[in-house]
């Protein structure tokens, strides 16, 4: 196979490499080999994603026909500025969290389970990338379920330490399956009136369908299912427990990439598949997405303020941050979509970093991290804590961090849309997020009896610092993320 052939197959490889290595990892006799395969899988996907991003500069797009069947009959993988940007963000974070998993995962699960855990890990990464790449509405459902089932396995692995992980996994399984089935019902309605499943083909056919009621019902079912998967308020209920009781490395992986893929699909469905019906998509954006996003922002922030368990606190904060992304999408403007995609990238960096730091604490403490047990850790684990602080400040949106760029572009998009009331609410919620961060920071430097330094493992804090430095880097030089997101938004709204 020549280099040109490899490049032509990159869209499939970004999904296929992790999926193909997954069964091999399940057979790995030792944990180290499983981890090596996971690094190979996510690394290969990252390399493919970087190449794909390069191939889409200037707004170019191309597609890969699976089995050489041309669409609309066959399934196609679409490479355009939107999918290339999202898959690059996700692959990068998946790779860094995989590096972290070497030590962190073994600290929390049994050694003989490790190979199978890395197998589920690769399946989750491959499934989520597939969700982003696919241009087929039904194929999307299959990837939705591949990623959901493997995520459930990963979450339930936390049972070795805390049996509550089993219930979190079960609830995610049931709620996620109902959500995915709603999506399939919607696709069924759309298929019944259009006779197509290819997203680009659907976008052409939907405006010409005379049965507008069926299209609206289909759209409603699809969106309802996707909102569950993206954990947008009020269907976020599976998320806090799942992130809180999963093994630390899994929490970091899921928090960084899992809901991002579903949010991307929401943007794709609203502004791609249903682009021909701007009234319908606009109505859903203005009267469903924006109010739910605002409710989620406040509920998540307030629950985080009162929460004592740090992983659950960060999970509630994720509900709020997902709200910011959904709010950007809900503006239904190029600037709003760009703000949403910027925050997809930056929130992956922020929350990924925070969960990596908490994972580091959990391994050092050997117990759940809550406000009580993390007292004094600022002095005992300075390297990890500094990384935690950088990501935390980025979460609040301090200037010179990536989080500030997110807020800046969201505020600009809101000003452009003349939504001053919403803008004030966003400002207020940002101020509230300082409260829960400060609560943690205060405890970190509490005086404690046990003030001895903990030996910090480079394997745990190096991945964290990679992400922390990325948070600073993209705060000072935000061009890569901002340009990628703006190209994605312009492509979706037809401006490119």
């Amino acid at each position, binding site marked *: 196979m020549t280099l040109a052939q490899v490049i032509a197959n990159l869209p499939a490889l970004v999904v296929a490499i992790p999926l193909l290595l997954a069964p091999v990892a399940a057979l790995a006799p030792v944990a180290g080999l499983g981890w090596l395969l996971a690094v190979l899988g996510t690394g290969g996907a990252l390399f493919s994603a970087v190449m794909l991003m390069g191939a889409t500069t200037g707004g170019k797009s191309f597609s890969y026909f699976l089995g050489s069947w041309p669409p609309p009959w066959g399934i196609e993988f679409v490479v355009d500025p939107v999918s290339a940007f999202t898959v690059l963000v996700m692959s990068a974070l998946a790779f860094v969290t995989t590096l972290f998993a070497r030590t962190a995962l073994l600290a929390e699960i049994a050694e003989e389970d490790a190979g199978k855990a890395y197998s589920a890990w690769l399946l989750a990464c491959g499934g989520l990338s597939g969700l982003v790449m696919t241009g087929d509405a039904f194929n999307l459902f299959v990837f939705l379920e591949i990623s959901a089932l493997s995520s459930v396995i990963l979450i*339930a692995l936390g*049972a070795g330490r805390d049996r509550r992980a089993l219930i979190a996994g079960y609830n995610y399984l*049931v709620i996620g399956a109902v959500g995915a089935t709603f999506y399939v019902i919607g696709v069924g309605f759309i298929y019944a009136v259009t006779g197509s499943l290819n997203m680009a083909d659907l976008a052409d056919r939907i405006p010409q369908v005379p049965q507008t009621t069926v299209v609206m019902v289909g759209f409603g079912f699809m969106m309802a299912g996707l909102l569950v998967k993206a954990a947008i308020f009020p269907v976020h209920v599976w998320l806090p427990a799942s992130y809180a009781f999963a093994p630390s490395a899994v929490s970091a992986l899921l928090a960084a990439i899992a809901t991002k893929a579903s949010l991307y699909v929401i943007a794709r469905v609203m502004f791609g598949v249903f682009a021909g019906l701007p009234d319908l998509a606009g109505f859903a954006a203005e009267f469903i997405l924006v109010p739910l996003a605002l409710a989620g922002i406040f509920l998540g922030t307030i629950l985080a303020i009162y929460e004592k368990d740090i992983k659950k606190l960060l999970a509630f904060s994720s509900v709020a941050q997902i709200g910011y992304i959904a709010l950007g999408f809900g503006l239904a403007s190029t600037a709003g979509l760009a703000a949403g995609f910027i925050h997809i990238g930056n929130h992956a960096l922020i929350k990924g970093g925070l969960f990596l730091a908490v994972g580091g604490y959990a391994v050092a403490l050997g117990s759940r991290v809550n406000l009580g047990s993390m007292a004094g850790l600022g002095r005992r684990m300075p390297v990890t804590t500094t990384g935690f602080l950088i990501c935390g400040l980025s979460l609040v949106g301090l200037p010179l961090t990536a989080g500030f760029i997110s807020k800046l572009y969201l505020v600009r998009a809101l000003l452009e849309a003349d939504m001053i009331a919403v803008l004030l609410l966003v400002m207020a919620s940002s101020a509230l997020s300082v409260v829960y961060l400060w609560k943690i920071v205060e405890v970190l430097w509490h005086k404690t009896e046990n003030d001895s330094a903990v030996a910090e493992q480079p394997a745990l804090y190096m991945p964290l610092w990679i992400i922390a430095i990325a948070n600073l880097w993209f705060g000072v030089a935000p061009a890569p993320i901002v340009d990628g997101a703006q190209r994605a938004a312009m492509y979706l709204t037809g401006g490119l």
Partner: protein
Amino acid sequence: MSAPVSVILDSWNYLVVICLMMGGLFIVISQNNLVKKLVGLAIFQTSVFLFYISVGKMAGGTAPILMKSGDAAYSNPLPHVLILTAIVVGVATTALGLALVLRINAAFGSIEDDEVLAMKAADGEPRGRRGEDDAEDQQ
């Protein structure tokens, strides 16, 4: 034949789909037993399978096999293929769900939702706001 009867007969498949769908979803939400919830989930998913197959059926259509005469009306085969995939996904979901219930039974000694949640709440710190967590988990 009076109008209501013919409406029922014409859309018989879809009425069954609606009953199964709502029944299944109701079981998922209302049942306390974790296995029964999975049964409800399976019924809910099965209703969608039936919905797809009904959409693909063409009145008087034959099986989609290429014949020499070439002018026969075919039923649409694509929904069948899609549902074959969806059935596989459904089996995987049910299997994983049952495996989790087994583990929950081993860890908690019960598969009743309220009992398990009560024990789960007791696992947390006593000073935590447990009531709120339960409300979330039951949804």
